[in-house]
C-alpha cells in the first residue's frame, strides 16, 4: 500500500503541477492531476489562496485560472531544504 502523502508534500505537488503548466491551469484539470478527492482538493486550494501561494485570475472570457504567486515559487524553491530540516531535527 502506498504511504499517505504528508500535507507539505501535497502542497508541493499542487504547486508543481501549476508550475509545469506554464504557471496557469484551470481548477478542474488541477483537481484531476493532483490525485486528491474533490473535498480535500478544494480544502487545499482554499488554504493556498488564503496563504497567497496561488491566486485566481479570470480571463476576458470569464474562465478562471490558477497561477503561482512569488510566495508559491519560494515554497517550491525551498521545499527540499524544508524537508531536509524537518528530517534532520525529527520534527
Amino acid at each position, binding site marked *: 500500500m502506498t504511504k499517505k502523502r504528508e500535507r*507539505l508534500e501535497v502542497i508541493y505537488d499542487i504547486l508543481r503541477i501549476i508550475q509545469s503548466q506554464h504557471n496557469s491551469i484551470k481548477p478542474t484539470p488541477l483537481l484531476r492531476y493532483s490525485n486528491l478527492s474533490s473535498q480535500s482538493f478544494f480544502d487545499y486550494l482554499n488554504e493556498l489562496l488564503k*496563504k497567497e501561494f496561488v491566486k485566481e485570475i479570470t480571463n476576458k472570457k470569464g474562465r478562471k485560472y490558477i497561477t503561482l504567486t512569488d*510566495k508559491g515559487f*519560494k*515554497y517550491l524553491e*525551498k521545499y527540499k*531544504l*524544508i524537508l*531536509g*530540516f*524537518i528530517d*534532520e*531535527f*525529527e*520534527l
Partner: protein
Amino acid sequence: MARPPFMDPNFLVIELIFSAIVILLALLIYFRTKEMYALTKHRGINYFRNAFLFFGLAYFFRFVFHLFRISRFLFDINISRQIIAPASLVLTSYLSTMAIFFLVLSTLWKKTKDKPLLQVAQGIAIIIAVLVAVFRTPEILTIAQLILLVFAVIMSYFSYKKSKKHSRLFIIYILLFIIWIFNISVLGPIWFLPFGLRMLSPLISIILFAIIYFRVSKWTK
C-alpha cells in the same frame, strides 16, 4: 559586606560574555527558521523555534537573576534586589520549563496529535514558577527540572525501544537539558564550586547551541 572569594567581578564578566553568546545563538536559531515556518506553518517547526526563543530568554533572565543576586557583593548597592531577583528567577523558571517542553513536543507532536500536551506543559511550567515564587530559591527549579529530565529520558527510552531508531539529536537535546539544569544549580547551593568547573557548563552550552545552530543554518541558506 565583605565579598566572598567566588564572587570575583572577572567571573561576572566571563559569565556575561558566555550568556550573551548563548542568547545570540538561540535567537539566531529562532530568526533563521522564521521563513521556513512562515511558508509551512508546520507545528513541529513552530515548537522547535519556540524552544530556542524561550531558551534564549531563560538564559537572559538567569543572568539578570545572577547579576542582582550578587550585586550587593560586587557594587555595594542594593538596586531593587527584593523585586528584580525573584521576578527574574520566576521568569527563568517558566521560560526554561516551557523551552524544555517545546523541544520535547517538537519531536513528539505527531505521535500525540490529539492530546492537549501544550496546555499540560503550560500548566506544569506555571506550577513550577509559582513554587519558585513562593520559596524564592533556585533549588526548587533544579529539583523540578531534574524530575522532568528523568521523565523525558524514560519516555525517550520507550520511544527508542518501539522504533529501534538511533537518534544523535536526542543525545544533544538531553545534554542541553542536563547542562541547563547545571546552569541553574550553580546559582544555588553549589556556587562555591571551583571557577574552572563553574565555567565548564556555560562553555558546553555554547558548544551545544553552536552545533544546533550550524545544523539549522545548513538548511536555512
